[in-house]
């Protein structure tokens, strides 16, 4: 071990010790709820009309963060496309029959799971991001096992429409209720599938956007920029 490594370890141990100590003394593990948390726990169901508070915060209270977050994903996609452009299409290899049949059975099931997760995002754990990742992994499985390519333009259009929909719902809120992302639809009954106003719609748009963006990223990572 060289001196540099030892110094690095010392630094790391100091970092862990100091931060853990000050956290434990000032914000003990399992401490009482903060002011913000208390408010959310008491009022979320009333104000947004959905039982999953995390979804309520992600889509409604902090919906703007989420808009920024899908923008970050878009940026990753743009960056990967810019750095690893996809120039030539390779010939599709003939896949092994076991893989072929396997993927035909598994692929729709994974897709279905993804769709279920996003539609129930405001009632049960899960939502747009989780579903987006699940759907993207289904497509990734498809590409890996059949070593084929998907029509990325279709994904780009899906993503573009979904993202624009999200942003425009936000802008519509300015005119409908005086605030960006204002929930201008009726909230319905708690625990119903059709409830929460714009929240399920926005989460489905997020799911579409995230899934197509992640698929694009992964396929460019696989093959993009190979021939130069």
């Amino acid at each position, binding site marked *: 071990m060289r001196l540099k490594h030892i110094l690095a370890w010392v630094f790391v141990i100091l970092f862990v010790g100091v931060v853990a100590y000050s956290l434990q003394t000032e914000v003990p593990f399992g401490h009482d709820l903060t002011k913000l948390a208390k408010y959310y726990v008491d009022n979320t169901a009333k104000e947004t009309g959905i039982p999953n508070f995390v979804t309520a915060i992600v889509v409604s209270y902090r919906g703007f963060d989420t808009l920024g977050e899908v923008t970050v994903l878009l940026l990753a996609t743009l960056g990967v496309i810019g750095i690893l*452009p996809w120039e030539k299409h390779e010939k599709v290899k003939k896949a092994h029959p076991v893989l072929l049949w396997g993927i035909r059975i598994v692929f729709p099931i994974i897709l279905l799971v993804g769709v279920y997760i996003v539609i129930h995002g405001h009632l049960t754990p899960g939502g747009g991001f989780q579903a987006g990742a699940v759907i993207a992994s289904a497509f990734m499985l498809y590409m890996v096992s059949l070593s084929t390519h998907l029509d990325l333009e279709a994904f780009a259009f899906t993503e573009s429409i979904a993202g624009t929909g999200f942003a425009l719902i936000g802008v519509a809120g300015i005119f409908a209720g005086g605030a960006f992302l204002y929930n201008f639809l009726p909230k319905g009954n708690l625990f119903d599938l059709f409830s929460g106003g714009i929240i399920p719609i926005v989460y489905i748009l997020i799911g579409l956007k995230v899934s197509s963006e992640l698929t694009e990223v992964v396929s460019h990572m696989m093959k993009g920029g190979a021939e130069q």
Partner: protein
Amino acid sequence: MTLKLFDPMLMIGISLAIVFLMPIWKALGGKKLAWAVSVLLYAFNTLFMIGVAYRATLYPEGLIIKIGGFKPPFGIVLHVTFWGAVLSTFVWFVAFLSIMYASTRYDAEPADVYYALLTLLALGSSGMFLTGDIFNLFVFTEITALAAFGLSAFMKKKGTAYATIKYIIMAEVASAFLLVAIALLYGKLGTLNMLDAQQTLKTVGMTGAMVLSVLFFLVGYGVEAEIFPLNLWAPDVYKYVPEEVIALFISGSSKAAAFAWLRMWVMVFGVPQKMLQTMLWIGIVTFAFAEVMAYSQKSFRRALGYASLGQAGLVFVAISLGSELALKAAFLLMINHILSEAILFYIAGNIGEDGAPANVRIPLVFGFLGAVSMPPFIGFWGKIFLFMALAKAGYWVMFVLIALFSIVEIAYMYKWFISLYKGTGKMDLVRSFSPIMLTLVSFAMWFMPFVPKIMDLLDLAIKPFLQKGVM
């Protein structure tokens, strides 16, 4: 009533919708349409932000825009002050000039992606200037950072790949630190709203966890605000990345990070006195290191890169001092830096076989004068204010050090100026539009402190701070 229309969220929402539609623009009209849409958007946003800046002056604590209609601190708010709105206007203005400049750049492919990245860099930094929520600030920081990575690596050259990967690693570590800082702050104060955090912190005081939080925020924003030793990525990026992108880095991501630090340090933490000395010294070291390094550079763009780090150091000193005079200085130095360095980078990108272009000599002179904070440039007032602030606070050692290294700066800038002024090259007519426009703006800015009515602008920028400690 009509003023209500100047809602910055409208600007952000529409810009995002237009960026998201980029594949559609491309399908409809190719990259020409993508370019045209972006130019229109930037011009519109520049004008719109002027309106927002005017609207912000009507509110003594800054204009608070609730998002989603929830009352703060429970929903996200934008907290628009005059200062932030002015810097945001400059971002869109420089973005407009950059994309005009980029219209002659044919090697940036795929072009629609390039324009989308430029838009998002401007949008991300604009969001950092406007937001009033600590986690939202983090999200915008990441938007800015990823757009910067993408643009920085976009040319797919040897130099850009090398410069970008260093930048990415540093910025990624910084973002992890930012999240730890947010965890500490949220755990202790139980809020993410800046104004609310400021109020809560007054009752809690600067405990150990808060000191750690400040330090981690410093690391988090220091990379993009170019604070020593977190700025080592910058000279390479400034050397290899296209000049129109660099102009946007200087006005966008670097200023936005400095402004974020201003918001955290002055507004949320209220300039904790026991850490003041350390911060000042970090700024001084940044300045001194940058000027010494710049002196020994053989490439003009690298020298400019280091000079830009030096300016960032000065801005950091001014912000950290956090008194009225110092903040005025920071405001002027930021604008000065945006204008002068952008002019010089636009010109530096066109130095060819025959040396510097001869048809943009006046902008060249202006750029150099601005880079050393000399009249007719507002940076002159900025530096005067900074010296006054340091003298008033009794930091004489720092006063002398800054004066000393300013002389170093003037020395090497003079050297470069002499060698560049002799150039007989020629700059593309479309390209020369950008530095000429910036020169006009900076000339107009010089008169700012002379006209009483306009001098008030400076007071407007500082007023929210004096009244409520709000930036």
